[in-house]
């Protein structure tokens, strides 16, 4: 809407214009400076964190030699892969059911689907802790599932919040497509499944992938819920690092942190790039 109007009305003139620019630059510096400093000091050849003492990669080789870190990375990866796959399927199905159909109880489902996003993570963590401590034995009948084991609990709880994030991203994509293509496919004798696989799925794919990458990030980064449900010996990396960094600043923590942050940012950027395709399309309309 605002594109056609001369900038002069939107942008303040004179001194306040430069104030606005300076302020914005400062806020971006505030966003990124701490991250940059953390990265720089992870290469610092000193045990004291505040003084630059020359470049080293020692802390990174320590990191890869540390067995606890290695095994917790594996826990994180397993939980992340399995929980992301399940949440992508369930989240996409939920998004389609909400966007493409009208049925009884839809509004209630919609509301419940939003809750895991806004609920404070401590509350979510408490819910999972209480639930699993009361019901762990209920799941014994399912072959191959043993809820005494931390991994399954981690997967179940990560899926519980990631369904919502996936479905939000997929719904944003679906809302921007019109249903007429699917109807055309139906007119050409495609059955529902064919119409979905041939028409709908390719169109929502950026949303599905964007949602999946977001789920990966959230699963890898989750600390609070995971620290409540993980079992001894099965802690994911984020929980292990949380325990380490509460004790204090060490060069090893710095290097682990940088690796985690880099992974997280890479997934976020990929997710944004892929689902931004959605955004620009909408603006063109």
């Amino acid at each position, binding site marked *: *809407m*605002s594109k056609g109007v001369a900038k002069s*009305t*939107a942008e303040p*003139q004179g001194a306040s214009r430069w104030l*606005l620019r300076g*302020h*914005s630059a400062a*806020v*971006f510096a*505030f966003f*990124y400076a701490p991250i940059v*400093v*953390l990265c720089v000091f992870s290469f610092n050849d000193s045990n*004291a*964190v*505040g003084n630059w003492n020359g470049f080293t990669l020692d802390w990174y080789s320590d990191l890869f030699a540390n067995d606890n870190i290695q095994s917790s990375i594996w826990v994180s990866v397993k939980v992340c892969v399995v929980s992301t796959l399940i949440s992508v399927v369930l989240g996409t*199905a*939920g998004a389609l*059911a909400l966007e493409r*159909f009208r*049925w009884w109880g*839809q509004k209630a*489902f919609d509301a*419940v*689907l939003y809750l895991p996003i*806004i*609920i*404070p993570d*401590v*509350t979510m963590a408490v*819910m*999972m802790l*209480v*639930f699993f401590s*009361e019901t762990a034995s209920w799941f014994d009948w399912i072959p191959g599932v043993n809820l005494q084991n931390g991994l399954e609990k981690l997967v179940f709880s990560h899926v*519980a919040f990631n*369904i919502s994030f996936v479905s939000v991203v997929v719904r944003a994509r679906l809302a921007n497509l019109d249903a007429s293509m699917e109807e055309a496919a139906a007119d050409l*004798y*495609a*059955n*529902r499944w064919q119409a979905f696989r041939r028409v709908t799925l390719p169109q929502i794919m950026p949303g599905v992938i964007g949602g999946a990458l*977001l789920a990966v*990030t959230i699963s890898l*980064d989750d*600390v609070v819920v995971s620290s*409540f449900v993980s079992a001894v010996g099965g802690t994911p990396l*984020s929980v292990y*690092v*949380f325990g380490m*960094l*509460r004790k204090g*600043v060490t060069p090893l923590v*710095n290097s682990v942190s940088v690796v985690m942050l880099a992974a*997280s*940012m890479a997934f976020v*950027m990929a997710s*944004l790039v892929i689902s*931004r395709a959605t*955004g620009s399309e909408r603006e063109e309309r």
Partner: protein
Amino acid sequence: MPVEAPPGDAPELEDTTEVATPGLEYQAERAKARQGFLLGLPTIVYLLIFFVAPLGFVVAYSFATRTSTGRTELRDFNLNAYARLGDDIIMTVAWRSLWMAVLATLICLVLAYPLAYFISTRSPAVRNMLLVAVMIPFWSNFLIRTYAWRVLLDSDGLVTQGLELLGLGDGRILFTSNAVILGLVYGYLPFMVLPLYAAIERVDWSLVEGARDLYASGWAAFRRVVWPLSRPGVIAGSMLVFVPSFGAYVTPAILGGNKEGLLGSYIVLQFLSARNGPVGSAVSVVVLGVMLVSTLIYFRAGGKNL
């Protein structure tokens, strides 16, 4: 991509033979509604088991009985845990959470509004770039971003040294409430920028032009036109910062000392050390209540569209 042969089995054509009788259309609609429900069913069942039921258990726990060994048993339901909410310790933590969350929200608003305004008045290409630059910290690892401040605020950290160089006191703010507020602002600032941007971007600038034509000063045009139109974004952003700050646990755990715990920390303490499930659950229920009220306000303000 290989093109498959057209489907051999005849698809159900019944629905497409349109429709002299209203009954048929009604049936088709019912069939479609059923399909939609069935499609959503696995997700519904999953959320009922792993989200709604756990929520129910927490509410039940808040009325449950704590045995002398610290176990919580779902019997003899009572209000004891809620009676404990008036205790001095809990009230102190609750007030601290409230004022810290309010303060963090206000600081975020002051920092984010000009930035959101700046971003929404850029050209589309620049705007997209800046938005991505805001969204990367929005989604990336909260724990590590908070930890980065611990590095800066450590006794020989850069900020501490800088403050001391500038002669601003002894510069050690780690483990104080200031550090916690700083951490909350840093962690949740993007939550404020994005809805504000969405609201300001939607402002119809020809209204501002009209105001200027009628001899409003730039400031007056902002105060009387842009600000009121962007208020849904202000409300939405404030909620998105306030709710997680109010229940914060990670930030005070990393940047605060023993005395800066917030409600989130208190809940964790009740479950992991004090072994008092009912009180921990009752506090969780209160936090949930605050969240629900805030969410209602958020949707009323048009939050869902932002």
